[in-house]
C-alpha cells in the first residue's frame, strides 16, 4: 500500500492569454482554465502506481475556489480524494511560499510515500515547486523522471529513471520521495463520466476544502508576506518582427527563397 499525493495547478490556457500593454496586466477574462498539462501525467502516474502496488491517490491544489472544477476532473480520472487549499492568506505566494504551504498540507494528510508534480507549469513555468517541496519536507526529490523501474514494498525502496541532456540516470531512494514528470511520459486516461457525476453531486465526499486553520503553517511563511520574490512589473515581450512572406509551393518560390537568404546574408 502506497500513498500518492499529486500536486495540480489550475492554470489559464496560456495559448489564449493576451496582454494589455496599457495596463501592464494579463487579460484572463474569457480565458479557459485547465489542469496544467503535465499534472495530468502526474495523476496518470499515481493511478498506475496504485494499480500496480495498491494504495491511495490524493490530489492537492492551492488555488482560488475555481480550481474545484479541476479537482473534479482529477476525481473523475480515478483519484480517491482531493484537497483544495484555499484561503485569502495564501494569495500572492511565490514558489517558495507555495511550496511551503503545499508541504504543510501534505504533512497534514499524514502518511505519504510518493509525491508527484508536473515538471513545470504553462503559466509561470519555473519548475521550482517539486524540488522545494522535497527540501521543505526533508525528503528525496528527482525532477524530470521518465519512469519508475521498481518499488520494493517491504524495504520501501524506489528505483527510477530520468533523462538529462547527455544521458539517462537511474536513481534509488528510500521512500518517501518527490518526483516530477513532463507531458509525454504516459497517456493520461480520460475522466470517467460516472465518477464525474459522483464528484459533482457528492462533492463533499471526494473533495475537502482546507484553509489556513486546517494546516500547521507559520503565518510569515505563506502568501505574499512569506514570499521572498516580488514581481514588480510585467511588460509585453518584444517580438522579433518576421517578414511572413508565405507562398503556395512552386519551383519559382524556391528560387525566391534562395534570393531572400542571400539578401539577408543567411547564405
Amino acid at each position: 500500500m502506497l500513498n500518492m499525493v499529486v500536486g495540480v495547478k489550475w492554470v489559464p490556457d496560456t495559448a489564449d492569454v493576451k496582454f494589455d500593454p496599457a495596463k501592464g496586466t494579463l487579460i484572463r477574462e474569457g480565458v479557459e482554465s485547465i489542469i496544467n498539462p503535465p499534472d495530468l501525467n502526474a495523476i496518470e502516474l499515481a493511478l498506475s502506481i496504485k494499480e500496480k502496488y495498491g494504495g491511495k491517490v490524493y490530489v492537492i491544489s492551492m488555488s482560488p475556489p475555481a480550481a474545484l472544477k479541476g479537482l473534479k476532473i482529477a476525481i473523475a480520472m480515478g483519484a480517491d480524494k482531493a484537497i483544495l487549499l484555499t484561503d485569502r492568506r495564501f494569495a500572492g505566494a511565490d514558489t517558495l511560499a507555495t511550496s511551503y504551504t503545499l508541504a504543510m498540507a501534505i504533512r497534514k494528510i499524514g502518511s505519504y510515500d510518493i509525491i508527484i508534480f508536473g515538471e513545470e507549469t504553462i503559466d509561470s513555468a519555473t519548475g521550482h515547486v517539486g524540488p522545494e517541496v522535497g527540501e521543505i519536507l526533508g525528503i528525496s526529490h528527482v525532477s524530470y523522471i521518465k519512469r519508475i523501474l521498481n518499488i520494493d514494498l517491504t524495504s520501501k525502496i524506489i528505483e527510477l529513471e530520468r533523462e538529462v541532456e547527455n544521458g539517462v540516470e537511474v536513481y534509488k531512494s528510500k521512500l518517501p520521495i518527490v518526483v516530477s514528470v513532463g507531458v509525454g511520459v504516459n497517456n493520461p486516461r480520460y475522466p470517467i463520466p460516472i465518477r464525474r457525476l459522483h464528484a459533482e453531486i457528492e462533492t463533499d465526499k471526494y473533495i475537502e476544502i482546507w484553509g489556513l486553520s486546517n494546516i500547521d503553517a507559520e503565518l510569515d511563511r505563506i502568501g505574499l508576506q512569506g514570499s521572498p520574490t516580488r514581481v514588480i512589473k510585467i511588460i509585453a515581450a518584444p517580438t522579433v518582427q518576421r517578414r511572413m512572406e508565405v507562398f503556395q509551393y512552386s519551383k519559382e518560390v524556391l528560387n525566391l527563397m534562395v534570393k531572400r537568404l542571400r539578401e539577408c546574408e543567411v547564405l
Partner: protein
Amino acid sequence: MVEFSGVCVYIEQRRGIIQEASLQLLGEGRRLADKLNVNLMAFMIGYDINSIINEPIYYGADRVVYIDDEIYRYYNVEVYTQVLVELLLKYRPEIFLVAGTKYGRELAPSIAARLETGITADCTGFDIDESRNLVQIRPPFGGRVLAYIITPIKRPQIATARPNVFPAPKRNIDRKGEVICENVSIKKPRLELVEFKESGDKELPIEKAEVIIAIGRGLSKSDYHLAYELCKVFSNSAVGCSRPLVDQGLMPRSKQVGQTGKTVRPKLYIAIGISGAVQHIAGMKDSRYVIAINKDPNAEIFKFCDFGIVGDYKEIIPELIKVLRSKH
C-alpha cells in the same frame, strides 16, 4: 552576521567538461559585479577537475572555490545541494547564478528552499536597481510577456538562465585570480545514483548549429532521411525536432527545441511539418531567419516565419535540396 556581498556563478561540469551555459553566466556575472563594484566568484564541484579549475578565471571570475573528491564524480542533487549550501553560507555572495540545465533547474530551487531565499527561473536579462537589488527579467506565459522580479530582502538572490541566452565572454588565459580548494563534510544521501548511461549522440548539438532543420509530427518517420539530407547541404548544421517526436521515442531528447527542450538561436531555422505551438516557438523565436514548410496554410508557424511555403514536404524538400546544391 556577515553581510552578503559579491556575485557568484555555479560552474557546472560534467566529466571534466564545463557546461557552456555556466561560462555564459560568467559574462553576466562579471557585468553585474562591476556594476555593484564587488568581486565575481565561481563555485565548482567534481572529481579530478584540477585541469579546469582556472577556466572560470579566464572567463572573468576573480576567485574560484572548488571541491574535488571522488564522491562528487557524478551529480546528485542531494549531495550537491548540501555542498553548495555550505559554500554559500561560508562565502555569502549576494547574487548566485546557476545555468538552467536540467541539473541546474533542479539544484537551484533545492538550494533556495534550504536557505529560505527567493529564486527566479529562466532569466533572459539582469539589471541592478537603485537599492542594489538584482532585477531579474524572465519570459513566462510562453514568452508572451516579460516579468521583472526582485528579491528585496532575502540573500542570496538566486537566479537561473537557460543555456544560450547570454553570449560567452572571450577566454583570456592571461587573467589572474585566486583559487581556493575547500572541503566540506556531508551527510550520507538518501538518494543514490545507481547508473549513468551516457547517450551515444555524437552529432553537432543543436544549440551550437548555425542552421537547424527542425522536423515535426507532420513528417513520416520513413522521411526523416530527407531532413538529414537537407541538413548536409549546409555546414555547421543539425537536425532538431518538436517534442512529440521525442516523447514517442523517434528522436533523442537532446534534439528537442522548445519551452521544455532547448532554446536555440541559429542563423537559419527551417521548420518542416511543425504546427507552431507556443511551447515550440518559445525555443526558436530568436532565430535570425525562419523558414516554415507546412501543408496547412493556416498553421500558426507561418506567423513566426520570414519565409513560408505551403505544400507537401515530400515534394518540397527534394526540390529544395537540388536548388540549394546548385546555388550554394
